[in-house]
C-alpha cells in the first residue's frame, strides 16, 4: 500500500520530499534533486515499479525553472509514483533514462522538441512532431500561439 512505498523510499533515500496528495488514492509524489532522479528511478524499477507511464515537463516561467515529472507504475502494488525534479530553465539539461527504459526515447524526444530540454546520453533527439520549426519551442510559456496564428494564418479573435 501507499505507506509501504513511502517507508521503502524513506528507508533508502535521505533528502527526498514525499507528498501524499489528498483526495487521490494510490498516488505518491516525491521530489528529488536533479542528479538523484536516475538513481531513484533505478531503485524503484528494481522494487516492482517496472512500467514507465510517462515523462513530462512543466514550465514554471515565474521561478525560471522547468519541472520534469516521471510517472512510474507498479503492477503488483497498483500505485503510481511521480518523481518530480526542477531544472534550470535557461540551460535545461538532464540525464536520460534510456538505459533503464527504451521507450523513454519517445517522451524525451517530445520534451526536447516542445520545451528545449537537452537529455544528454540520448542520441535520437531528432524532430518528432513539428517539421522544420525554427522558432522557440512552442510549449514554452513565452511563445504566444494566438499572436503567431493571427500573423501567419490571419485568424481574428471575435
Amino acid at each position: 500500500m501507499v505507506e509501504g512505498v513511502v517507508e521503502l523510499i524513506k528507508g533508502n533515500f535521505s533528502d527526498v520530499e514525499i507528498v501524499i496528495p489528498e483526495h487521490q488514492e494510490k498516488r505518491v509524489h516525491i521530489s528529488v534533486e536533479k542528479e538523484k532522479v536516475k538513481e531513484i528511478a533505478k531503485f524503484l524499477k528494481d522494487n516492482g515499479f517496472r512500467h514507465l507511464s510517462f515523462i513530462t515537463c512543466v514550465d514554471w516561467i515565474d521561478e525560471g525553472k522547468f519541472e520534469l515529472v516521471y510517472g512510474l507504475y507498479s503492477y503488483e502494488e497498483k500505485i503510481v509514483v511521480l518523481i518530480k525534479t526542477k531544472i534550470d530553465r535557461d540551460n535545461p539539461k538532464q540525464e536520460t533514462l534510456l538505459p533503464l527504459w527504451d521507450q523513454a526515447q519517445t517522451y524525451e524526444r517530445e520534451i526536447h522538441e516542445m520545451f528545449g530540454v537537452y537529455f544528454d546520453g540520448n542520441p535520437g533527439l531528432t524532430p518528432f512532431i513539428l517539421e522544420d520549426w525554427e522558432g522557440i519551442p512552442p510549449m514554452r510559456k513565452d511563445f504566444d500561439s494566438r499572436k503567431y496564428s493571427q500573423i501567419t494564418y490571419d485568424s481574428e479573435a471575435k
Partner: protein
Amino acid sequence: MLESFRGGKVARWFKGRSMWLLHFCTGCGAIELPPSMTSRYDLERFGIIPMASPRQADVLLITGYLSVKTLKRVITTYEQMLDPKYVIGFGSCTINGGMYWDSYATINKLDYYLPVDVYISGCMPAPDAIFAAFLELREKIEKGEANGYKLYKIHYERYKANQDKVFKNRGIIEGED
C-alpha cells in the same frame, strides 16, 4: 467527342454521377466517412467510391482541421490529381479555423491555400450533411460552375504566396527575435 456533344451537358451529367473520392483522412472529420461509405449510409449509391491513389480520384475531402505538416502533403496530393478535380471543405475548421483558430499548428482559412468548391457546416458534419454536400457538388458540376481547379491555375501565384507564407520561418513571430 463526348465533351462537345450537346455542349458537354451529357459529359457533365456522367461526371456528376461518378465522383471518386480520395481516401485521405486529413482531419478528425474523417471518422464520419467510414459510416457514410459502408452499408449504413452507403455513398456508393451515388457512384462515390474511395480511391487509394490521387491519380484516380476526382474529389479531395479536407475533413476538418489541417495541420501545416499535412497541408504540405495535401498540396502535393492536390497537384497530383488530374483535372477536373474538386475540393470539399468539411466542417467549421476549414471555414474559419474552428476550435483551433488560435493554434500555432493549424491553418485557419482553407481557401487561402486551395480553391474550395463546397463547404459543409458542422463540427463534424453528420453523414446526411455529407450527402447534401455531394448532391450540391453534383449540381455544380452539371451546371459547369465547379471550376475551382481552373482558378487554381489562374491565381497560382496568389495561392503559392499564401502557402509559402505558412511554410517559411515556422514559429518565428514577425517583429520578435
